[in-house]
């Protein structure tokens, strides 16, 4: 592993970059450093932002001893082991295809597969949440099987519904709210990764894992009702 780079971001933040690629070990080190910085809580710390491959630390420039912060980061990133405890694993029910997943047939024909094969491939992988960003609760999932990796749509849609199960390139995601998207919609889940007023507001965290479970459209109404009542609907399962 190359030495992590410590990159100043103006006077109020610093980014520790562990690599330039999407890699579970790099992401694991990001999350491990995030745990350390948050538990050490250096004076002036405002918040930390873990991404695929770096940790950005934002602080009050007047209150923070920058040199001490950099010394802490340098010391802690020496031979930092990736966070070895995998996060929680969530089983997320999905109704695939039809009006629930309007791009399923197109994705299948692009790859010379049947819709059922795409569903099998998509729902038999274990996805890692590398980061949450773009919108509140939007999960960037790695682990998509290359057989169904599909480049983004030429014409992005202005609005796709909350709960859309989508793929773009080699990434997968779950729409936390109605949002614009250039990805392909395979299905819909009643699960809300983000629900203001619910405890917890955010269901998933970076480092968690997701598996998708195909369910019949006949179960949609009951599952959606439970989700609207504030139930997570996503089930925590043992790896």
């Amino acid at each position: 592993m190359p030495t992590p780079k410590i990159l100043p971001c103006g006077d109020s933040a610093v980014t520790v970059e562990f690599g330039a690629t999407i890699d579970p070990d790099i992401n694991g080190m990001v999350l491990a450093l995030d745990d350390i910085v948050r538990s050490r809580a250096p004076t002036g710390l405002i918040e930390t932002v873990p991404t695929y491959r770096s940790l950005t630390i934002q602080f009050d420039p007047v209150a923070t001893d920058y040199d001490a912060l950099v010394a802490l980061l340098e010391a802690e990133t020496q031979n930092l082991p990736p966070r070895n405890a995998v996060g929680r694993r969530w089983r997320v029910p999905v109704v695939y295809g039809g009006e629930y997943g309007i791009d399923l047939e197109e994705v299948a024909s692009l790859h010379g597969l049947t819709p059922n094969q795409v569903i099998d491939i998509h729902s038999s992988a274990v996805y890692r949440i590398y980061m949450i960003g773009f919108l509140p609760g939007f999960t960037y999932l790695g682990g998509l099987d290359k057989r169904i990796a599909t480049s983004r749509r030429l014409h992005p849609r202005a609005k796709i519904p909350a709960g859309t199960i989508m793929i773009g390139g080699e990434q997968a995601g779950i729409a936390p709210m109605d949002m614009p998207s250039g990805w392909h919609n395979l299905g819909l889940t009643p699960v809300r990764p983000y629900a203001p007023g619910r405890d917890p507001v955010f269901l998933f965290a970076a480092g968690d894992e997701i598996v998708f479970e195909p369910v019949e459209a006949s179960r949609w109404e009951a599952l959606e009702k439970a989700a609207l009542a504030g139930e997570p609907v996503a089930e925590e399962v043992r790896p």
Partner: protein
Amino acid sequence: MTDLVVKSCGPMTSLQDRGRIGYQGFGVSPSGAMDRRALAMANALVGNPPETAAIEFVNLGGAFTCEGGDLHVALVGAGCSASIDGTPVAPQTSAILKEGQVLEVGHLRTGTFAYLAVAGGFAVAPELGSLSFHLRSRLGGLKGAPLKAGDRLPGRPEAQDREPMQLTADILEESGPIRVMLGPQDDYFTPETIRAFLESAFTISQQADRMGFQLTGPRLEHAKGFNIVSDGIVDGHIQVPGSGQPIVLMRDRQTAGGYPKIATVISADLARLAQMRPGTEVRFRAVERDEALAAAHRLKDWMASLPSSLAPVRFALTTEHLLSRNLIGGTVDALAPAPAEHHD
């Protein structure tokens, strides 16, 4: 209950405070006031902590009234003007908006953002710790929306007991190029490109909003491509997409993004940049951490000094003001017993 009622306002008028802290790791933009200096001044005038939520105006003014009681209000920022029932309120002063009176806020003349603060702030429930409205995630404000005619903002009647004040402190005005620190991805650009970035004039384009300011100027060439794996973003990051035209990321920015960032605007200069209108020319100057830190200290000290720079407006009243308020219609013996009845 005392409500500030919106009679009219521009489409992007919203509540803004310090911003939403602590949820960027879950994809939540911090948002918050674009000009924290003006927000702090408006709040100081009505006795509030500097980052209390206020109404942020974007280019356009509006009209407000209050129902159920009086409100102590102050408007600061971008050459804006205010009047109450047609009587102008002097710049950098607060005023009492009496029940039923109409406060009119004129269009902003010298910048883009202005703030209307109300003593005690608004009794609106924060979302994820902040009242700041964020358009894309529909968080904050009034039920996740900007303000519109008919909205009622509940005030705090118990906080309206102060008399109108004026700020004697000078506005913290800086001039010259916007100061930046290079990085975090300045190594994605050649030395010639960095020189072009620091020596050229850029123009703030019409694509300038709370999320970011698109600049136009010489094309900034990348040395090793413009796609990077998404990493964290902070206020003031200057990212350069494939077009070679830089974008300064502002308060409503995303939490992570995938373009190289050539430099970062120092925290003390963000508000000054925010108030520059589309069409304005902007230049950048690279500074080291020492200079950025000195500027941050100066801004913080200035904000801390605001409450001690206040004086009651009555010491500065002009004859016209006094006449208009009907306070010097006759001679009154201050020691005389109060009349049993009030006569107009």
